[in-house]
């Protein structure tokens, strides 16, 4: 597997470290249901057979966290974004909605 880091270009798999599902984000600790939400966040990550969004870290490169869209059946990677960009957009959207 090779991942195209937005900063460093296409690099071999062994430069990267895997974290997992990027679809669930850290819940609001002030939420009345925080205990349950944190449980889901930490333990019930999506485990689907098909295209998934997941967090990878460019350990042997620029130390960027990446949101990689990858098919777990074929290992084919269709998209790579900087996690910081995805997260910034998410926060703006949330703020806008609120």
């Amino acid at each position, binding site marked *: 597997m090779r991942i195209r880091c937005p900063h460093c270009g296409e690099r071999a*798999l062994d430069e990267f470290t*895997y974290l*997992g599902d990027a679809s669930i984000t850290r819940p609001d600790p002030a939420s009345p249901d925080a205990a349950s939400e944190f*449980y889901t966040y*930490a*333990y019930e990550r999506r485990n689907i057979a098909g295209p998934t969004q*997941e967090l990878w870290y460019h350990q042997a490169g620029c130390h960027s966290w990446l949101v990689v869209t*990858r098919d777990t059946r074929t290992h084919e990677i269709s998209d790579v974004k900087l996690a910081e960009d995805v997260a910034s957009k998410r926060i703006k959207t949330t703020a806008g909605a609120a």
Partner: protein
Amino acid sequence: MPSDHYSIFSVLLEALRGQSGWRPAWRKASPKPAYDVVLVGGGGHGLATAYYLAKRYGLKNVAVIEKGWVGSGNIGRNTTIVRSNYLLPGNVPFYETSMKLWEGLEQDINYNAMVSQRGVLNLYHSDGQRDAYARRGNAMRMHGVDAELLDAESVRSMYPWLNHDDARFPIKGGLLQKRGGTVRHDAVAWGYARAADRLGVDIIENTEVTGFRIADGRISGVETTRGFIAAKKVGLACAGNSSRVTAMAGLNLPIESHVLQAFVTEGIKPFIDGVVTFGAGHFYISQSDKGGLVFGGDLDGYNSYAQRGNLPVVEDVVEGGMALMPRIGRVRLLRSWGGIMDMSMDGSPIIDQTPINGLYLNAGWCYGGFKATPASGLCFAHLIAKNEPHEVARGYRLDRFRTGHMIDEKGMGNQPNLH
């Protein structure tokens, strides 16, 4: 008269008549409209569960539904190691129960699965690792399990050809479980299938479960590629596909599916007697009765349903092998394969009821499912038959992550690719 019981006498008799009297090891059953219990997954755990349901709990109206061929999952894709050298009280009695069942398995099921207790040796390379193994060995002994802590000299006399003198991480000793060893993996599936079949269990191959019939929180059967099959109780033993299957019942699991590669070399004259694990790299090895070196290492580290891995882990594992055993450099890798591991969030399994009445779950075996096969079958059968956990599997609750009662041998937390 066909030969049904396996013995030296039936083998000699069949030798005289050209092997013509053997019956199929198990019937190619077609589904009946309804069963008391339907087990989803015809791997080691599903078949063992069926066998113990019939043999110990008197439930014989049982079907095992397998989407491919019997034993097509991880029971046939592992490194065949059995051991009960666990640390935590939630695990030791369970794996020791499994070990005891292995020890009597062949006579019980009348099938030689070549349970071979040639010893499992975990090497340590630092004082800290030694003390951690001492803690583990002591825990085992307090549970009545055999364990010996060896020093460097004892390891050297057992395996003089390990890299004792030029190692990056010198071998300082090892934790030995003499009763550990290996079992011929396919034979476990076939043996349980045959034994369950003889007790009346229907083993239905090439039939895929496509859905569950659930009403008012209670399950009444499974939809399959060969139609609906009614069942009072349904047990899931689908290993790496657990999340896919439970998704059809609307359940998310604290499980990720990861690929684990394993390897075998060309057959060479046996020189590795038992199982050896490297404490400073990701490598464990044994030698099969055919002479192949069977070895493995870490997970590839990313979620996968592809049953194959990548080159960096191949290199990483073999590097560990060469660091430990410099004499294997000119031995050749013959085959590699990848299994889908149902990695739980603490590295320990789940054997529990689900929130759906009548639906039972057996999953989260990580890379430790093979050695657990007999106990997993027994405990799952117990749970299904009695609606309460078997005493050695009480900790394997589905809600333990919610309540903070993890059973985390490696201390890696909710990061399945590190267990």
